[in-house]
Each structure stands twice: as structure tokens, then as C-alpha cells.
């Protein structure tokens, strides 16, 4: 029961593959990012002075040389912070500037403002900091051993997994390591703080969460929310990395602006960005599973230990989401899912597309693959027998009923359209004939829960004005990071008023226009803001209808908005004509709109309820080839079928699917974060940290959005969120690689393969397999 708009000829209505609203600006270099904003007079540039130690007391800081360096105007340390020295939004354990204890290499200790960027950065290198080293815990395994946790460990239990495992005909136990990932948004972290009258501040920040910046800055400078306005027109990518982290950057710029009375910009260079700010959590995953002859999971224990780093940041919710996604698309009748949130002396890990979900899904997919190899059957068959049912076997470990399951349909379609079975046979034959190169194939499903697990965050506001010339100003609490949110929300408003999308200007996210907005995260941007904007538009429309009925003496049902016109009874007038008339009749042409997600409720103390409004589904088949001499690998083909509900904008959604997939491929293959023994991150720039390039994307890439799959929930035009779920389609690539490694023994043995599957990891896997260390 799709809500399709009939016969609409407006440009950029709902369901149109309209280009990104800034596309023209992007390609001409005219799109303004924070660093491109014309600089205020006498602007100063800031740089951070950071810790060289993973864990140490600061004995002394000698800043004399910094202050004396050319161009330097001000230096601040923790003691110069008039307000609260914290930017942690959930737990107050994230100092803006380390007071006396440093807990990771790269932790900011002081900040300097100078006349030029170069001067600030050079000066920042001149401080003499004396440390007294303390023992450092650098990885999750050590942290678990030493019981070093940043937040209490949690357990999600359903049924009785212990007995189920013991009674099961088969049992497997194992451990797998899963690496983290840097967001690697192309635009680094940046904020510009501009003093306003009376000590107020105006902040331009590249942030997914302007409201958070507002609070963090107000607290830091010892003022209140009303004294700070934050604006963000667009980010050059974010991916979760600009959810909590920009508060640090903005707070430093604000503190220096407050101190100097000048505008201050802090822009991290790429190295600082990667060293100072958090990434996707890396995990050590232990499992213990019991299953039957067909591979049906009878009982399972998981222990997920994640490296949270030095502070809590968003790690609580992230690790909760890991627990919620250990089922992926599979029914787990008896499961015990333990989650350790490890405190380590490394950068505090943070949000990244999927927000812990991908790691949970990695765990179960790994186990399912192991089961299949143990039973010597096609992993796809084991996947299928474990899928959630529609009417039975449909309750998640956290007691939500999966009432919108379409995974069977998606997987069946994809299996057929990709010739999966036939290719598997052909590949096995090919592998028998080839000694050095081996190919592998895998099909993996995705089921991803949509909503913030913290229920209160599922709200949004919007603000719509119509001007007397009939053009529209649209504002909402969501932020634009490239995902096309502004375009989609504008399409909703265009549809509502039945006017061309170019009549609508979407303006920068601004805390003074829409207050208390949640972070644009959890894939919820268009679900929430689309609805809020629709409601704002509908309020105005209602007034317009009322005006028209009075003015033209018709009944409300005779006022029809269509194709840039309004038909009133017999006559038809351009939209702007009606607006003009309505204005003359003193009709309010401005409105706010507010939306809260219905139906969700969830009790964190028991980990049960309905945390998710609905689920988004998808599946991918990938085929790879590896070189068993070197571990080099290449993705040969990927087929993807993904569910976006009734898409608001198929072109934009396709972009999210493909972009998310390729980002996921990077996470699981070439993107390796490498710290040395001293806790120093050595992969802190694109020279050493390798995200996919064009040639890593297969020539044969077949991506489709699932047709006729209206969301069963009443979301905006029955669409589905699409930001995060596609990332996990990349699990197919990892498992195709694992399959190719297994090809070395003609599939007789199951390789152990950690992620990311770099050439080195793959070669190690092959070697272990060959000497029989693995079974």
C-alpha cells in the first residue's frame, strides 16, 4: 500500500531521482565548507599540543617557547578553562585539555592561537612537557584480563544457552579479532568561533550534532545554551566521526576566542585528526555454539570485548547495539551475549556508520560460516535454516518481535539473480585446477534495527517559512554530511506544497532555528526530519486551505494543490498567487513541525522491549580471487539487493548503498589501524591508512533496490532508513575471502581469518591452514 503520488509533474517530488541539492555547487567548487567561510577580521588560527605518552602524570608543562614563537597570541591549558573541562556528553570523563593525567598518545594538553595556521602548528611543537609514565593498557584482551572497563560489562540473555550448547549434537568454540576503522571523512574536523556581543559566541562547526556543540561550548566557557549559536551548512563527510568528536574542536576554538576576543579557527590537519579523534571500536570476539546436523543454532554464547579507549564517549550505546545485532537475521532461541567495554590507554573510540551493529553482525556471520565448514555444507544453507521466521522463530534476544521480515524474499531473489549455486560449483572446480590463485564466493544477509536505542533521541523539529513570492525556506534539526538528507526533506516539502524543489531553499542547521535536535545519526535523518518538515508544511497548508475556502467560498475538498498550482473550485492559480492573497489576508506563512517516533519503548535495565521501529534488510553476494603466495586479493563481482522501503530518492539511496558497501569493504580488507608498542598510531594519514580507491570497486557491480517493498510502518512515504545498513553488505566480501582461503584445502578445512583481511592476514591464514594449526 505504497503512497505513490499520481500524475505529479513537479520537479523533485517524492520518489524522484533528483540530484543532490548541492550537486552543482559541489562540481563547481562553490559549496562552502567551514574552512571556506570568509574569515572575520583579525582571525586567529589554533593548534593543539598533545600528549606523547599513552598513560602518564603530567609533572610540568613549559610553554615558554610556545608563547615566544612567532605569531603566537595565546596559549591555554586546563587551568584556563572558566567552565567545565569536559566535552563528554554521556559521562563527564572527556577533558577538553588534560589537567594532570594523560591517557592516550595524542590527547590534547594545551592549545595555541596564532596569526597563521603554520605558526600555530609550529608553536604547538615547542612545548616541554615532563611526564611520569604510568602502566598503559593498549588492547582489549589485556584490558579484559586486568578487568579494566570504562563502563560496567553487560549481559543479554535469552533462554538457557548453557544447557542448549551442552545438549547440542555439535559444538564449536573460537575467537576472532576484528579491527577498527577510521572514518576518514575527506574534510577534517574543524570549528570557527566568533565572539558576539556580551561574550556570546557564534560557532561554525563541522558537526552531526550542533545542539551538542552548543552545550559543550556553553559549559566550557562558563555560560549557558542561550549564549551560544551553532551553525552547520554541510560537512565534507562525517560517518559518525562528527557525532561527539567535534565538541572538542569547537570547545577549544571557543575557549581561545573567549580568551583573545578574536575569532578563532581550529582545523586539524589529517594526522592530528586521525591521532586525536576516535574511530570504530575494534573487538575481540569469543564464541561457543551448539548446533544440529543441519546447522541450526541451538545455543550460543558470545563474549564481545571492545576497545573503548580512555573514556566512555558513546561506547555504552555502541556496545549495546553490538549486542542487539549479534542475531543479524538469525533466530537465536538460547543465547548469552556478554559485552565488555574495555578501558584502554588509546584514543576514545566513537560512532562510525553502524554504531557497533556491524561488529555484532560480524560475530554471528563468522560463527555461521564456521558451522557450515564444520558440517561441510554450503554456508548459505546454514544461513537459511537459521533465518528468522515470519510467524514463529521471530523473537529477538531482546524480545522484540520481528514483524516485518523480508529476508527470505531478498535472499531467494538474489541467490537466483546472481547464479550463486552455479557459480559456487564452477568456482570449486576452478580452484581444483588452480594452485596459486583461489576464488571464493559468499552470500550474506543484513537485518539492521532502525531507531536510536536511547528512546528520547527519536524526536525532530523543523521550521518552514513561505515568502510572499511563493518560495520556501526550509530548516530542520538534521545535518547534511553528503547523505542527501537536505534533498530528501526538500522533496517531502515540495511534494506537500506541490511546487518544484528549486522553489525551496534548505538552510544550514542552526541551533537558533530548531532547538534541541538530536544528532543526525542512527540512519534516522530522513525518517525524523522528513516527518517533522511534512508536519510543518501541513500546518501551513491547512491555513492556506482555510484561507482559500473563505476567500473563494468553496469547501476544503475543492482546494487542490498540484503541479505548482492551486485549484480552487473552477479556477486555478499559481502557487505564489495564492500565497500573495493569503498574505494580504494576514495568514501566517510560517510554522514549526515536530515528530516523535511512535511504537518504540525499551527498558535498558532488562535489555528488552521494542528498541527499533522497524528493520532494514539487504543481502549481497561477492566473489573474490586471492593469491595464495602473497595474500593479495581482488573483488571480482558483487551483487546487491537492498531494501529502502519506498525510496524517497532512488538515486540518493543507491549512492548510500554503494558508498556504504565500499566503505565496509575497506573496513574488512585494506583499512588497517596499526599502533606500535608504545601506543602510537602509525597509520594516521592516507599514505599509511588505505581506504578503497576506484580500482578496488569491481567492474561487475550489480546493485538494486528492492522493488515494491513499502515499509510496513508508517514512515515518511513508507521509505526506510538507508545510511548505515548497506555497510554490512561488505561482510559478503570478507566471507568470500574466507571461502577462497578454504579453497586451498578444497574446502575441507576451515581457515581462521581475522579482520581486516589484509594480504598479510590472508597469507597468515593460509599458512596456518596448511600446517594444520587450524581445524
Amino acid at each position, binding site marked *: 500500500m505504497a503512497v505513490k503520488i499520481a500524475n505529479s509533474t513537479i520537479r523533485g517530488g517524492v520518489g524522484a531521482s533528483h540530484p543532490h541539492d548541492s*550537486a552543482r555547487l559541489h562540481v*563547481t567548487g562553490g559549496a562552502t565548507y567551514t574552512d571556506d567561510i570568509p574569515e572575520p577580521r583579525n582571525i586567529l588560527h589554533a593548534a593543539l599540543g598533545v600528549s606523547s605518552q599513552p598513560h602518564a602524570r603530567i609533572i610540568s608543562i613549559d610553554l615558554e617557547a610556545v608563547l615566544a614563537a612567532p605569531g603566537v597570541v595565546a596559549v591555554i591549558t586546563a587551568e584556563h578553562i572558566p567552565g567545565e573541562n569536559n566535552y563528554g556528553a554521556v559521562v563527564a570523563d572527556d577533558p577538553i585539555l588534560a589537567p594532570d593525567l594523560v591517557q592516550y598518545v595524542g590527547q590534547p594538553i594545551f592549545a595555541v592561537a596564532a596569526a597563521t595556521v603554520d605558526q600555530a602548528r609550529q608553536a604547538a611543537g615547542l612545548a616541554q612537557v615532563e611526564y611520569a609514565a604510568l602502566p598503559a593498557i593498549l588492547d582489549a584482551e589485556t584490558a579484559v584480563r586486568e578487568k579494566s572497563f570504562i563502563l560496567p560489562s553487560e549481559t543479554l540473555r535469552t533462554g538457557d544457552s548453557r544447557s542448549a550448547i551442552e545438549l547440542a549434537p555439535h559444538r564449536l568454540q573460537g575467537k576472532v579479532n576484528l579491527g577498527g576503522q577510521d572514518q576518514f571523512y*575527506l574534510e577534517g574536523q574543524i570549528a570557527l568561533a566568533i565572539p558576539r556581543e556580551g561574550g556570546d559566541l557564534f560557532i561554525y562547526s563541522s558537526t552531526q550534532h550542533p545542539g551538542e556543540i552548543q552545550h559543550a561550548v556553553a559549559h566550557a566557557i562558563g555560560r549557558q545554551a542561550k549564549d551560544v549559536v551553532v551553525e552547520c551548512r554541510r560537512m565534507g563527510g562525517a560517518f559518525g566521526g562528527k557525532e561527539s568528536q567535534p565538541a572538542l574542536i569547537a570547545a577549544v576554538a571557543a575557549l581561545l576566542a573567549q580568551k583573545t576576543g578574536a575569532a578563532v579557527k581550529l582545523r586539524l590537519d589529517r594526522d592530528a585528526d586521525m591521532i586525536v579523534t576516535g574511530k570504530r571500536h575494534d573487538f575481540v570476539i569469543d564464541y561457543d555454539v551448539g548446533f544440529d546436523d543441519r546447522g541450526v543454532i541451538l545455543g550460543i554464547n558470545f563474549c564481545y570485548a571492545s576497545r573503548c579507549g580512555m573514556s566512555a564517549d558513546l561506547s555504552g550505546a555502541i556496545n549495546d547495539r553490538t549486542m542487539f545485532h549479534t542475531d543479524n537475521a538469525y533466530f537465536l532461541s538460547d543465547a548469552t551475549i556478554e559485552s565488555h567495554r574495555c578501558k584502554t590507554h588509546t584514543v576514545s573510540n566513537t560512532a562510525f556508520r553502524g554504531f557497533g551493529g556491524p561488529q555484532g553482525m560480524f560475530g554471528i556471520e563468522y560463527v555461521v560460516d564456521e558451522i557450515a565448514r564444520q558440517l561441510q555444507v554450503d554456508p548459505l544453507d546454514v544461513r537459511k535454516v537459521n533465518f528468522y521466521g515470519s510467524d514463529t522463530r521471530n523473537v529477538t534476544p531482546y524480545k522484540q518481535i520481528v514483524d516485518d521480515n523480508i529476508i527470505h524474499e531478498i535472499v531467494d531473489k538474489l541467490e537466483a539473480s546472481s547464479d550463486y549455486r552455479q557459480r559456487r560449483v564452477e568456482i570449486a572446480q576452478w580452484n581444483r585446477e588452480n594452485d596459486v590463485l583461489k576464488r571464493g564466493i559468499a552470500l550474506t544477509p543484513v537485518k539492521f534495527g532502525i531507531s536510536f536505542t536511547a528512546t528520547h533521541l527519536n524526536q525532530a523539529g523543523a521550521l518552514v517559512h513561505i515568502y510572499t513570492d511563493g518560495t520556501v525556506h526550509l530548516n530542520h534539526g538534521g545535518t547534511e554530511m*553528503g547523505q542527501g538528507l537536505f534533498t530528501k526533506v526538500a522533496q517531502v516539502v515540495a511534494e506537500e506544497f506541490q511546487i518544484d524543489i528549486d522553489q525551496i531553499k534548505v538552510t544550514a542547521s542552526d541551533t537558533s532555528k530548531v532547538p534541541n535536535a538530536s544528532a543526525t545519526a542512527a540512519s534516522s535523518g530522513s525518517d525524523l526530519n522528513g516527518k517533522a518538515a511534512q508536519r510543518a508544511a501541513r500546518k501551513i497548508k491547512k491555513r492556506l486551505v482555510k484561507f482559500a475556502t473563505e476567500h473563494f467560498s468553496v469547501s476544503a475538498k475543492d482546494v487542490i494543490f498540484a503541479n505548482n498550482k492551486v485549484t480552487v473550485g473552477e479556477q486555478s492559480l499559481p502557487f505564489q498567487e495564492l500565497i500573495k492573497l493569503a498574505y494580504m489576508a494576514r495568514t501566517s506563512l510560517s510554522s514549526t513541525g515536530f515528530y516523535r517516533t511512535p511504537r518504540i519503548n525499551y527498558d535498558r535495565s532488562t535489555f528488552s522491549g521494542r528498541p527499533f521501529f522497524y528493520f532494514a534488510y539487504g543481502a549481497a553476494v561477492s566473489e573474490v580471487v586471492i593469491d595464495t603466495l602473497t595474500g593479495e586479493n581482488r573483488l571480482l563481482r558483487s551483487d546487491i539487493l537492498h531494501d529502502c522501503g519506498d525510496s524517497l530518492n532512488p538515486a540518493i539511496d543507491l549512492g548510500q548503498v554503494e558508498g556504504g558497501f565500499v566503505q565496509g569493504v575497506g573496513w574488512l580488507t585494506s583499512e588497517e589501524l596499526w599502533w606500535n608498542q608504545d601506543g602510537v598510531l602509525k597509520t594516521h594519514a592516507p599514505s599509511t591508512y588505505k581506504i578503497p580507491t576506484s580500482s578496488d570497486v569491481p567492474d561487475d557491480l550489480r546493485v538494486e533496490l528492492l522493488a515494491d517493498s513499502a515499509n510496513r510502518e508508517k514512515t515518511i512515504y513508507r521509505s526506510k532508513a538507508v545510511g548505515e545498513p548497506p555497510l554490512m553488505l561488505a561482510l559478503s566480501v570478507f566471507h568470500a575471502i574466507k571461502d577462497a582461503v578454504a579453497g586451498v584445502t578444497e574446502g575441507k578445512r576451515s581457515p581462521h581469518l581475522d579482520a581486516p583481511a589484509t*594480504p598479510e592476514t590472508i597469507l597468515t591464514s593460509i599458512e596456518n591452514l596448511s600446517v594444520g594449526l587450524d581445524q
Partner: protein
Amino acid sequence: MAAKLPKDVRKTIRFILDGEIVELRNCDPTRTVLQYLREDLQRVGTKEGCAEGDCGACTVVIGELVSVPDGLQLRAINSCIQFLPTLDGKVLFTIESLAAESGELHPVQQAMVECHGSQCGFCTPGFVMSLFALYKSAAHPDRREIDNALAGNLCRCTGYRPIVDAARKMYDYHSTENKDKSSWLSVPGSTVLDELSVTEAQQVDKLRSIAATGTLHLEFDGKQYYAPDSIEELAALLRQNPDACILSGGTDIGLWVTKQHRHLASVIYTGNIQSFKQISVSASHLTIGAGAPISDVMPMLSQYFPELDELFLRFASPPIRNAGTLGGNIANASPIGDSMPVLIVLGAELLLRSGDNNRVIALDDFYLDYQKTALARGEFVQEVRIPLPATDATVRTYKLSKRFDQDISAVCAAFSVAFNENIVTNVRIAYGGMAAIPKRAVKCELALLGKQWDDAGILEAVSALDRDFAPLTDMRASDGYRRNAAANLLRRFYIDSKQGETLTNVYHYGR
């Protein structure tokens, strides 16, 4: 101390931007083109994503008059590591240069919009400029050529497919009919001088008028910058100023400034010396001027050593190869530089020059220790001489890295082996990434020489190879991987040399 200079030194640099000649007198010689654009001109369409030549957000296009083919050559470079005075005598195109004054988008831009090639848009100006360089040099590139053209541009949002589509679609807008009316920038393919459009010819005339001849000398805040236009002058300047830093493509040096914040007091730029870039072939040798950019070296090498194609395709990215020189790669003496292992096994020699004195040294003898070469103070590399291939030798190179494109080698291997009746009569093997310098595997070579080229012989050689090197562990690979992979590359070479049915290279598979 400033060097003694010929009388006719120039004190200003000149280049063309938006069709106008820009003349700069006092400019900081190590200010980057990107800083100049963004900070001085507030021309902020060009972005910084890394300031180290690795992401492509800063890509701009440089135009130069060249003789082969006779015309205007447009090439992408990374403005973030290119020093401003190196623009002298050239024409610069930035993202702002492309759209017509009427606001009509350039075909590349139009294709990017229509193919949904931008999401956050931050990488987009760089992609557009790389595509523009491709548009102006190739007619209908295939996927491999497109990937190559984009190898230096990172996009974190799109997954590249729409950008690749745009690279194909961008040729759809040009109609031959309005060729004269449309700006020459929107005409695809390169043009030779006698086919120039009116507007293009005007550019060429302007370019001729600002040709970077004579010696350029800039002085700024105590920093000296010299750009001679002859090898003799270079030699003379270096002799007077032996501690000056020789700047060729700047793709290593640029990072000393942008990343390490090093202060370069005195710089001598070689890029204005045309004879320094010459490549010639004699009966016995291929002679490459040290200043030849890798992009120019590639087609020549390819002609004589087609086995090296993949290595050089994987050497950095087009913008880096357009700037970076072979001489710079060799002189920089990185243990993981890609050209050296193969040049060592090919028996390349260097012509070194100091003042008026020349000497020839085998590349094999050039590297003394970590980043230490046989170059004396004030001495420079003038030429690289590569013996033309012996007919009986089998040559291969292999590069291992985490990513196919634009990555630094974890291990780079080069092999040259000659046989007689399956007996190894000549063997040279060299590795990068296995020691402090690019180095021959002497024990391994010895184990092979005079032996049967068979499984048993390779087994021996592999164990000898293990004694040749004690590699390190770092972020690119562990010592264990380096050892294993080095041995396996020897095995791969053995398999490949048999030219049998066994496939070995994932990058060639299925293509």
C-alpha cells in the same frame, strides 16, 4: 649565503590563471599552490584533505608547452605539495576555471551532476580536475584507464561507481558542430599546435610570452629559491651553494614542509631545465634525464621493458607521477622506493655531476646506508642509463601493498634471470622493503647461479634468500610477512618464468 648569479636573473614568477598573466614578486618559495589559492586568493574551491599528495582533494591542472606531441599538455598535480614558484611559466586551472562565464557547466561537471557523482562534495573538485585532465588527454578511456586517472583521488562517500560513470558520460556533451563556439577547455582530447582553436592559440601565445627562461631567483624572509634553465647553471649554483636542497618534482620534499614543518633555507629547482628531462635511446642504452617526470619515463620504459608496466602504473598516482621525477626517486634513497630494485637488476648506472666533473656509478653501488647515498656535497644525479634488455633475460617486478593503487610497497621485488638449457647463466635479484636500502639478494643469486632452474633449485634459493635480509616490522607489514612474501615472490617469478598455465596475479586475473 646567496650564490653568485648571472646578470639576467629574473626576480618574478609569472603564470596564467583565468586567461590572465599573474606576476608575483615576493613570494614565499615553500608556500604551496594550495595555500596560495585558498589563503591568498580566497579561491577556496580547491580543498585540502591530507596535505601530503595522497587524497586528491587539492588536484589542479597545469598546462605546459611541450614538443612531443607539439602542443599544450595538461596534467593534474597535487597543489598541496607543489610549491608556488614552480608555476613559473605555466598555466594553472582550478575547479573555478571550468564552468563557462554563462554558468554553463563543463562537460565533466555536467556528467558528475547527472551521474550523482558527489555526495558530501568535498572530494568532488579534485575528482573533477582529474577527470578534466583525462578528458583533455584521452578520447574514450576504458575502465582501467579511468581507474588509473582516478588512482590519486579518494572518495569516502560514493563508492566510485557514479564517478566512473561520469568519466564515461562526460564525452557525451561535446558536439563537433559548436567546436569553435565552445571554450577549448570543453573540447575533449589533446590538441596539437596546428589544430588549435582561436582561444587556445591565444593561451599558447601568452604561455610563450612567459616562458621560464634564464635563472629565477627569489628571496623571501631569508629563504633563497633558484630556478636555473640549464644543467650547467644548475651545476654552478650547486657548487656555490652545496647545502641547497635540490627540488625536482617536490613529491618527497613537499611533505618535509607540509608534514614535518621543515624550514628549507635554500632551494634549487630543476624543473625549468628542459634538457634535464630528456629521454633518449642509443643502440645499447636508454638514457633518462634525472628530471624526467615518471609520467614521461613510463611510456619509454614500457616500450623496452613491458614487464614493468604494472609496477609503474602502481607507482603513486598520475598527479604524483606528473610531478615526481626518476632522479628524485633514486636520490631520495627510500628503502621502499619503487624504481630502484628493478633498475638495480637491469644494471642501471647513474651519471653524477659536480661542477664540471662527471662520474658514472652503478646504481647497485649508490646506496650506502639508510637514506645515505654516494652523492658528494654539491653533486647531483644528471642521468640514469639503463642497458637495453638482453634478449635471453627474463625480467619481472612485483609490488606488494595493502592496496593496489597509490600505496607504498611493503615489499618490492625485481628479478632478471638468464638461462642456457635451463641452467642459470646470469641472475640479478633485488628487493625493496627488506633492508635499510634497496638491495640485491646476493646469497640468493649465488644459490641460483649455474644451477638448474627447477623446483629443487628454487627451494635452495628460497632458503638462501632468508639469509640475505633481516626485515623490520612496521605498519605496512611484519618482518615475518616480508620474509615469507619475499620468498613467495621468488616462487612466483619461477612460476611465471615457465610461462605455463599457472595463473599468479590477482590483478591480471580475468582481465
